[in-house]
């Protein structure tokens, strides 16, 4: 059963990932990204990260991809891009070599060290029918306990990002241009 879930979710992830890279239409690429994100959410569930799976669907597939689509429509770049022509002839082969190299090196590292990693933490509590919210409770104890300072700094980061984006995209008035 777990194998079936893995195979289907892996197919979703890989098809979606290849779709993002290969589809020439930006909207199709964004929709392929949604497929990948849902596949990753399924993987999160099968790895006992239920809360993160929900956040993945809500934040990534719900907010970030909608933001992408919104910008695509706003800028009017929703037309097919010509990806047949390549200004630098060597770039594509080099990119494929780099990609295969990264993948190969990481895979080799994973396979050679697969027996080295050992359980050392307290363990992740698997949710049961009697205790369905154990993952959320365990995660929140970690976020609001050990990492509460990082959590607070994150809120500062979000405020800075929002204010900065508003300033970046605001149309400058002619009067304020002279004062710069």
């Amino acid at each position, binding site marked *: 059963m777990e194998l079936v879930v893995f195979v289907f979710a892996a197919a979703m992830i890989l098809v979606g990932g290849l779709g993002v890279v290969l589809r020439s239409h930006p909207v199709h690429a964004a929709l392929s990204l949604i497929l990948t994100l849902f596949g990753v959410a399924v993987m999160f569930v099968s790895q006992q*990260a239920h*809360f993160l799976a929900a956040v993945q669907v809500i934040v990534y597939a719900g907010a970030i991809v909608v933001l992408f689509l919104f910008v695509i429509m706003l*800028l009017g770049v929703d037309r097919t891009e010509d990806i047949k022509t390549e*200004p630098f002839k060597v*770039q594509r082969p080099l990119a494929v070599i780099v990609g295969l190299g990264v993948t190969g090196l990481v895979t080799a590292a994973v396979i050679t060290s*697969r027996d080295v990693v050992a*359980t050392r*933490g307290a363990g992740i509590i698997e949710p049961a029918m009697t205790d369905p919210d154990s993952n959320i409770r365990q995660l929140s104890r970690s976020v609001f306990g050990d990492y509460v300072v990082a959590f607070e700094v994150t809120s500062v980061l979000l405020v800075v990002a929002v204010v900065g*984006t508003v300033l970046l995209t605001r149309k400058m008035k002619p009067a304020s241009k002279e004062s710069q």
Partner: protein
Amino acid sequence: MSALIAAATPTTTWYLVLAAVLFGIGTVGVLVRRNPLVMFMCIELMLNAVNLTFVALAKRLGDIGGQTTVFFVMVVAAAEVVVGLGIIVSIMRKRPGANVDDISALKG
């Protein structure tokens, strides 16, 4: 055959290799594509590959810290997308239809 399928349960290594492949796809996408929006999507692919690695190792090591890290990575990714798309919008407003080669000099 069915016994073979029943015996083959996905281990952490499978998840890590899958994440490595997804990271490679994202790398190739960033290097090959010219549309800044699609390059951003490829960066999201790479972030998701790393998130999958964190979650798989959190299960393997029995440490909830991996899932906490993914939580923070998601927040930072959201902030990064917001700022990046803001920059792209303000560039595209001045030069409609620009790709990354046209704006390589970064002189508004």
